[in-house]
């Protein structure tokens, strides 16, 4: 039986959007924590830590997210660790986010002038204090636009987890299309929902950037 694209279907899409958001938020938070570690390791004074972080970034960035997803879903299952799809998907996306955010933040930290390190070291601050009070606050401003840019990508890239049967927004659209045969309506609706999530993020980023500028000009 062919169903029409009505209120129920739209509600189903919105409900599935919840999973898209859950995946995005989990991957941002978990990936973000990992990324800070990756970024700091990448510029650590310990050469081993630096090398490990470099290789990690190179591998994750050089492999399709889909492979990371397959590995954490089918791979781990094969190894005896059967994870619910949503967990495997969250892990895969977090790993993906950690490598990209880690690299973005490394760049932001490194773009703080060397003299800021020298001035704070000369005031007898510990390395941890230098990061906490001098370097990271300045990096945040530099890192903000590319970070939000990446998170917008992340929202859209959560769609790939539909492949391990997590019913997020894209998968929900496919399912509805399968029963309604109204691809144009369905996928425009899906696209509009993605846009409704991503556009405000970009806007907020721009506004934050301006606020930082005003604050610094104080």
């Amino acid at each position: 039986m062919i169903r029409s694209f009505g209120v129920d279907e739209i509600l189903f899409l919105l409900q599935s959007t919840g999973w898209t958001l859950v995946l995005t938020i989990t991957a941002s938070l978990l990936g973000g924590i990992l990324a800070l570690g990756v970024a700091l390791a990448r510029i650590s004074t310990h050469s081993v830590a630096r090398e490990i972080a470099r290789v990690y970034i190179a591998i994750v960035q050089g492999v399709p997210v889909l492979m990371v997803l397959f590995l954490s879903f089918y791979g781990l299952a094969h190894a005896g660790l059967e994870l619910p799809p949503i967990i495997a998907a969250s892990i895969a996306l977090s790993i993906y986010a950690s490598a990209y955010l880690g690299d973005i933040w490394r760049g932001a930290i490194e773009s703080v002038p060397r003299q800021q390190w020298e001035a704070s070291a000369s005031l007898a601050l510990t390395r941890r204090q230098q990061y906490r009070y001098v370097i990271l606050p300045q990096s945040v401003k530099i890192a903000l636009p590319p970070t939000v840019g990446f998170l917008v990508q992340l929202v859209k890239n959560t769609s790939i987890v539909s492949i391990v049967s997590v019913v997020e927004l894209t998968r929900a659209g496919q399912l509805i299309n399968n029963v309604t045969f109204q691809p144009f309506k369905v996928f425009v609706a899906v696209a509009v929902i993605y846009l409704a999530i991503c556009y405000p993020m970009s806007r907020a980023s721009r506004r934050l950037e301006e606020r930082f500028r005003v604050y610094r000009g104080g």
Partner: protein
Amino acid sequence: MSIVVVDNVRKSFAANEVLKGVSLTVERGQVVALVGRSGSGKSTLLRCLNGLEVIDGGRIEVAGHPMDYHPAKLRALRQDVGIVFQSFNLFPHLSVGENIMLAPGLVKGCARLEARKLAEQVLARIGLLEKIDAYPDSLSGGQQQRVAIARSLAMQPRVMLFDEVTSALDPELTEEVLAVVEQLARDGMTMLLVTHEMTFARRVADMTVFMNQGRIWESGESERIFRQPQTPEFRQFLSSTLK
């Protein structure tokens, strides 16, 4: 005992030996000017004194701290040795007051109120108390440099290092910074300054050290060696800077 001891110090950057066995002592309350062409090693020598550059040979002792690059030892030395840079290097995300309060709060554990008082005190000393809540990028270069001096003073250092602190400034701004440095000298602060301001060095420094090719080429009481340079290199350097 001398407050700064530099004994046969060597330092290379890759194959380029910048300091070729430099020895120097500075007594408490003494003001020493380091002069010479760029590339003569004077800034490197200054930066070696607070461990920003790691020496390859020789011995350094500052304010009773033998140079030791272990982080905790280095921090102990740096608490007693202030440095002011050519490019000011204020923390742009912090207000003037916060720039000054940061290290006393973190390193010496000053309470916020106490640190604030300290900031007011050092800012009054350099004549910029009214800028305590301003941000660095709203200040002129000269004002920023004076704040950098105040930030250093707030740690109550026993020795102050000045690395070409007026080289990035216009002539009129140079004057206001030099006035602050001169006042510090009169207050009895021990300091070493790398400078291109020869008249200032002659007037304010007790001793002037002329560096050339990584060596101390000529040094002595400022008044005397400016009047009677002993080496042709220093004589030529002086005549080229007076032009």
